[in-house]
């Protein structure tokens, strides 16, 4: 039993074919092929699935696809504009903010939400904002440094 849900994804109007129970993360990955949003857990904690919903960071594994109807979603694939990396993406590359990269899209989008409200956050604020984004590889310091660097420029 399939429903059609209209959303805007990365600036483009899209249609999602979903069931009542379909999670937004599955609709994005399987329905639209946007696999940059990752699934790392099943208890809504790891944050690897984070996307922006109307500009606010949310865990797409904890949103029903239906709930996103007529809203604007930004995934990691939609962050770069006109072939140019977003300042956060550039900062993560230049300041070594990633290792395996599995948590990275979620981290970057949470950081985008943070920087849109606090352009120069302290390290403490950054770390607090990352509570919902688990990383196992980096020990977080490269991530904090990258976000701090991007804060200076974006």
């Amino acid at each position: 039993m399939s429903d059609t849900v209209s959303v805007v994804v990365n600036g483009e109007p899209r249609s999602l074919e979903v069931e009542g129970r379909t999670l937004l993360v599955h609709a994005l990955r399987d329905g639209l092929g946007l696999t940059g949003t990752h699934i790392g857990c099943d208890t809504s904690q790891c944050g690897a699935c984070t996307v922006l919903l109307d500009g606010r960071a949310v865990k797409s594994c904890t949103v029903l696809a239906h709930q996103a109807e007529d809203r604007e979603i930004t995934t990691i694939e939609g962050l770069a504009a006109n072939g140019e990396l977003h300042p956060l993406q550039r900062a993560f590359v230049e300041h070594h903010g990633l290792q395996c990269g599995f948590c990275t899209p979620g981290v970057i989008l949470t950081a985008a939400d943070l920087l849109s409200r606090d352009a120069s956050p302290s390290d403490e604020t950054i770390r607090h904002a990352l509570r919902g984004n688990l990383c196992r590889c980096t020990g977080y310091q490269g991530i904090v440094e990258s976000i701090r660097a991007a804060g200076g420029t974006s």
Partner: protein
Amino acid sequence: MSEIIGVARPRVDAPDKVTGATQFAADGYVHGLLHARPVLATEAHARIRGVEKQEALAVPGVVAVLVASDLPVATAGTDRTSEPLAREEVVFAGQPVALVVAETEAAAEDGAELIVVDYESLAAVVDVEAAMEVGAPLARSVEEADDEAGDLESIHAGVDHGQEDDPGEELSGNVLDRITRERGDLAAAFASSDAVVEGTFRTPWVYQAYLEPQVCTAWLEPSGTLVVSTSTQGAFVTRREIARAFDLPLERVRVIAEPLGGAFGGKFALIEPLAVGPALALKRPVRLVLTRGEDFQSTNPASAQVTHMKVGARKDGTFTAIEARMIVDRGSNAGWGVEGTTSALAPGPYRWEAHDIRGYGVQTNRFTFGAYRAPGAPTAAYALESLLDELAEQLDLDPIEMRLRNAFVEGDIGMGGNPFPPFGAVDVFERLRDHPLWSKRDSLPSDEGVGMAAGFWPGGLEPAAAVCRVDSDGTMTVVTTAADMSGVNTGFAAIAAAAFGLAPDDVRVVTADTSFGPYSGGSGGSKVTYTVGAAVLRAAEAAREKVLAAAAQELEIAPDDLEVVDGVVRAKGAPDRSVTVKEIAQKALRFGGRYEPVEGHGGSAQTSSAPSIAAHLSHVRVDRETGEVELLHHVIAQDVGRALNPALVEGQMRGGAAQGMGWALYEELAHDEDGRLLTGSFLDYAIPTAERVPEIETLIVEVPAPDGPFGAKGIGEAPVVGAPAAVANAVAAAIGKRLYELPMTPPRVWKALRS
């Protein structure tokens, strides 16, 4: 060359990872894909009497429900490759018992929910010490000594097993392995000591918690080749295991190692049979993506361990004797255990006059055990480094000075009986000794403490090969089959660029699959940079010889008088007489071309390993009312041989230290008395978050490894080894009491303060 090696360049895979372009193993589209959902045992020890499939089969979209007899497994062993689904006996709660295969993930999960397994409960063996006693129920009814799976041990550490004798100790059939390592006169050495301390240290089962749950996709090509696309640390290991289990010739199994979303030792040929079996049985592509809950229950975390240890020293700080009894909970894994490595590493990077170390590998009904970053090492270091601090206190010696006195230097005979290669122990201890945090440790506020500890990893060895190929645009492609777990590809690019004479941006690295890639062993054991990097270096040098030979003809100058710099081959001392690498390549790679393609193949087979040591300072504050330990600062000094890329090296140091903080304060996989997992999600199992990990200061020490590329060593594991002990020593310094069990959770610290 000096501008390439030692430069903190961004990772070569970073742009794809920050844009979401990297395709991890669950991301690729496969036509006609079926989805598998495992049904996991809910009993820790039981006989399977039957599996009810009908309700599940009636779910729309469900294609098959498979049990062990439905999978074309050819081997009879009890390892996870030979027995991916339990045949008759379940040996741990979480063991896969059946697979539901469906057109969609949702249908597979709907079906899996309806499977009913009829169990006949057997006595569950959950306590490892009780399991050893004669008369204890056996964790596995039928003992199988399965040596074929024993090879997996060698991937992680090249340590021998010491003498395997059995001096009259009567133990149950759950004790699968006993290791004895003895040297010197233990009694005399203790007798000559001015201080002797002992203790029993407990560490729990700990989960690698890679962010990417395990995943594998398998399908048959029309030609009959089985393709296995998997998140793995070892493509060739996986190929070997699959070929063995399903009785397929090696050339018919093609393993593609997809980008790893973290692994840390846990992704070595474990779940592939659960995708391969259905793919072969149903002749359709099958993907298995474990949910996090399934990953918690059914993969292969690090063994719990009980270590009784006693150490002695003389009043000048010379270490005399070490005696240890190390009981390793192997869980349900019959094939191998970390008793070998933990007993070899128990004496740490120090000289002792006598040692008597015994390791026991004991099977229980708790998990299949697996490797986790320096397997067996953090647990050994926790015991040793805690006791060394007690020795220092009793003898009124500075803990770092005391360790310096005994630290291995080049030429000392290690546990394996071989002389130690160049080793930076003295250097890392001196860096910490001179650190301001160490000097102010006695003048901190009363609830704060600073602790230090060290840990080393011997470094692995395995022959490897690589190819460097120059393309017609003058850029180079480096080909290996090494899974990039720690950023090694970026290192390879730098090595090849520096050795050949190209700008690093003109070198790309590709990871080939087993069907045509040059051999490399699994990525683990802290050996990839050391061994595969050495192969890359030789391949680049071989390619360089080709381009020099061609340029020599072009320029009519002897090859010895030429150099290659930034993609230009030019006369030494007369740089205007030159030809570009691109020009040579274009003259080679065309119809009627006059030069051999500029390609090099390189191999390596080092026989001397490159041990790496890391020492830590941990600064903590303890809330005495709640027992919470706050990590304020951390310093790690590590001997890395040569930092090919300091940023990547620092990343490994910080990541390892942070995992050690998890060992110390947060992480424990707990079972109830029936052997069922209580902590099977991130709601119960705490991995360190950004708020809880402090700033980690990294001090890189370089003591070049003679056989490593540009002196580099494998450095991925050493950083975790001493970290839990450093935090434990810091807590002891802060509260004046020592905890003998990890993790040091708030309730345990609170209890220690009140006992």
